[in-house]
């Protein structure tokens, strides 16, 4: 009998059916992947299992016993451990404090080693250390969480769940924030947990990862579980097919485009982050017409600051930025927009959209003072709506309701609104940062097609991404950022993953020295 059984779970919100007839059997000691596009209903399912939502109908059974969770606390006590995509940690507190938080007064003296009234920091640290070592997940219980890397913070979350005696561990998109190395380490941890008999539910939309770590996979689509199969029996193409319900082209096909003059020229650019630490240390490169210049690198190596300096959100400390032979290094964001820079920011909800504005209003965000959105300071609503309707259809935004608020759209459709806005301006240069972050296969394909279309029109594109596959399948030339420098610029034709990896970790020059 399966340890966790989900039988016919249903959940609706207002008029939206989020989950319909969901079935899931998770066996002890296995890793069970749940694969699905954004909006397929994975999050709703997890929220029901973890007690955040109550199902409309259906059952959740642990070890054969039907559970009725009224709150997350019930689920935790029953043995459900969840590591959310956004960590639920208190940065200013130590690892041990975070782990025991909420259980520190339970007085289960034998295992938790705490008295009823007083919090004993040393005992907490000792019990955390003991647990983490017995699990083979060493962490320093005294370290402040804010000083830890993302991978270590995730480990804290895992230990926290197990400290609460989780019998099932749910990892929601755990690799979204990790470097490739950290991902490998996480996979090792998952395998170790399986050996100890703890099943892991691994939520993802990345086919490769599912194939690497899971033994069984359940595919969700449109709120339903459409298929469950042993991972070994399913090919990547099959999985993708089940996920989107049609065949997806995994590799973007690029047509030959004649590369033209340089549009963006960056020379010896220097910029600092908000804490005045210099994050961009003399970067030079150029982006030409009909070219996608990809910037690869591990997160935090100056990519964000580089992009912000180019689009005008960050002060330039030194060096120059030229757009079509004009020095734009000291212009405001508005002036740069007027000169033809389009920008797809990394955080589409915080920076790209105004969630409570309608789609139509968001489409005019950058050029509201221009036709067709306004005339002499007066909004021309009819013309703006007509334009919005056109764009929504052209970019296939769903639902195609221009009065719907941007916040009501799924991530992929939000990104389409941003792309529609930025591309319809016929920019000289498009700067796109992580344009497909958190999107599903179908949406990624669409976004990639738009970028390639822009390239075919002879525009210049600066693509910054942490996804190597994305860079490799789209970029014509690849620049690798490491420690604030452009460690290497390579032609995509003769680049290998190995050389990219070396450059990303700062070993590029050594390799050259060796060869």
């Amino acid at each position, binding site marked *: 009998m399966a340890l966790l059984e989900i039988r016919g779970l249903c959940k609706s*919100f*207002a008029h939206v059916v989020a989950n319909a007839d969901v079935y899931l059997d998770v066996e002890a000691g296995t890793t069970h992947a749940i694969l699905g596009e954004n909006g397929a209903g994975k*999050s709703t399912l997890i929220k029901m299992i973890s007690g*955040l939502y109550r199902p409309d109908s259906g059952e959740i059974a642990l070890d054969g016993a039907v559970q009725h969770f009224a709150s997350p606390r019930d689920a935790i006590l029953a043995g459900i451990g969840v590591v959310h995509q956004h960590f639920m940690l208190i940065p200013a507190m130590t690892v041990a404090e975070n782990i025991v938080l909420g259980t520190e007064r339970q007085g289960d003296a034998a295992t938790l080693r705490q008295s009823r009234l007083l919090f004993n920091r040393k005992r907490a640290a000792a019990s955390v250390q003991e647990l983490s070592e017995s699990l083979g997940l060493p962490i320093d219980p005294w370290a402040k969480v804010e000083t830890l890397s993302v991978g270590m913070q995730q480990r804290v979350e895992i230990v926290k769940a197990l400290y609460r005696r989780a019998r099932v561990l749910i990892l929601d998109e755990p690799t979204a924030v990790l470097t490739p190395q950290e991902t490998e380490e996480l996979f090792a941890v998952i395998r170790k947990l399986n050996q100890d008999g703890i099943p892991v539910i691994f939520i993802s939309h990345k086919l490769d990862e599912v194939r690497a770590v899971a033994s069984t996979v359940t595919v969700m689509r449109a709120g339903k579980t459409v298929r469950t199969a042993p991972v070994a029996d399913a090919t990547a193409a099959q999985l993708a097919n089940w996920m989107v319900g049609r065949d997806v082209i995994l590799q973007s096909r690029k047509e030959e485009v004649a590369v033209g003059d340089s549009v963006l020229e960056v020379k010896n650019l220097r910029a600092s982050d908000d804490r005045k630490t210099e994050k961009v240390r003399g970067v030079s490169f150029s982006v030409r017409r009909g070219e996608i210049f990809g910037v690869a690198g591990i997160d935090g190596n100056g990519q964000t600051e580089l992009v912000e300096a180019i*689009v*005008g*959100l960050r002060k330039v400390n030194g060096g120059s930025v030229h757009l079509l032979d004009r020095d734009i290094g000291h212009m*405001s*964001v*508005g*002036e*740069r*927009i007027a000169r033809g820079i389009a*920008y797809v*920011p990394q955080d589409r*909800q*915080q*920076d*790209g*959209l*105004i*969630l*409570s*504005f309608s789609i139509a*209003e968001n489409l*005019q*965000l*950058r050029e*509201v*003072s221009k036709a067709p*959105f*306004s005339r002499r*300071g*007066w*909004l021309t*609503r009819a013309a703006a709506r007509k334009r919005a309707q056109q764009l929504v259809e052209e970019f296939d935004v769903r639902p195609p309701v221009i009065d719907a*608020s941007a*916040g009501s759209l799924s991530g992929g459709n939000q990104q389409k609104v941003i792309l529609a806005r930025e591309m319809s301006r016929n920019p000289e240069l498009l700067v796109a940062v992580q344009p497909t972050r958190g999107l599903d296969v179908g949406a990624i394909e669409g976004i990639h097609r738009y970028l390639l279309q822009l390239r075919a029109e002879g525009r210049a594109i600066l693509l910054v991404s942490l996804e190597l596959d994305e860079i490799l399948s789209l970029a014509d030339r690849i620049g690798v950022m490491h420690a604030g420098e452009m460690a290497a610029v390579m032609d995509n034709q003769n680049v290998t993953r190995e050389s990219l990896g070396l450059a990303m970790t700062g070993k590029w020059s050594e390799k050259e020295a060796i060869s």
Partner: protein
Amino acid sequence: MPLYAVLTGLILGGVIMAIAKYNPFAAYAALFSGAFGSPTAIGNTLAGAVPLILAGLGIAVAFRTGLFNIGAEGQYWVGAMAAVWVGYHFPTMPWIVHVPLALGAAMLAGGIWGGVIPGLAKAFVGAHEVITTMMMSYIAILIAHFMVENGPMMAPGYVPQSPTVAASATLPPILPTVFLNSNLSDAFFIAVAAIVVVHIVLFHTTLGYKLRAVGFNARAARYAGMNVPLYTVLALGVSGVLAGLAGGVQLLGVDFQLTDTFQSGYGYTAIVVALLARNNPIGIFFASVFFAALSAGSQIMQINAGVSANMTDVITGIIIFFVATDRLYGYWSQKMRPHRPSSTAAIISGKGESPQ
């Protein structure tokens, strides 16, 4: 939803009166007749709504831009001082010049006091507008005291009050034969015009679009190339202009001279007005009339039903409570959803989507 808060406030107020052994029906009947029972009462209720409408509009504009203008009371007083000074200083000016000049002075004073100074402080050194507008408000109220208590604006004699404004600077009453002896003056038309103008600016101009964009999500507005500090100063400036105008029309249409009572309270009630109206210009009209009616009717309620006029404060308090909890409810339900709320300002400025 605002209607629901009002109804709950009235019902709970009635329950409290019943518990205190008063007849709530008699009390509300008296309250209603005090507010709307005669042409004079209607006139006075509408006149009482005028400063609330103007100051409420100002606060709503700030809220819409994500800013808290807590100092409308002080802006009201600097506006009042400026209008009165212009009003009595030029006794021979023609009406057509004098009134606009006095009101212009009131708007300018309110704008500088409430908008430009706190706005610049916020935009350039990050001083929070809640603190700066409130402190500026205290300064304004105390300056007004000083002005009429042996200060430069004190009228000859011993009574702490300013000279009366010249006849050429007063706003004439509306239909004095109908609204007999009421305070209703042309100020009412100014308030209605302000509603129309604010509505048009907010929803039909690029300026309004940008103000709202900055209010909803300053980061996205900055990423879209908008000059966020400029719109911060502008929004607080407009806010102060409207609160200053409230003081101006009140002095030229109702009071005609500064006295040292200084208990207008309009600037504070206007915050509640803006909250109840969810920063909607048209809603502000009705919210203002409602609060003005409560205040006008409370005297009659005290006389006819023996219920203390302070009872209306209790009702007001309950209404504020329900308006606020309604917002909180919307805020939490939004927070439970996957995307982040834009800011805590969303609770007060009514940007939280309505709960489903």
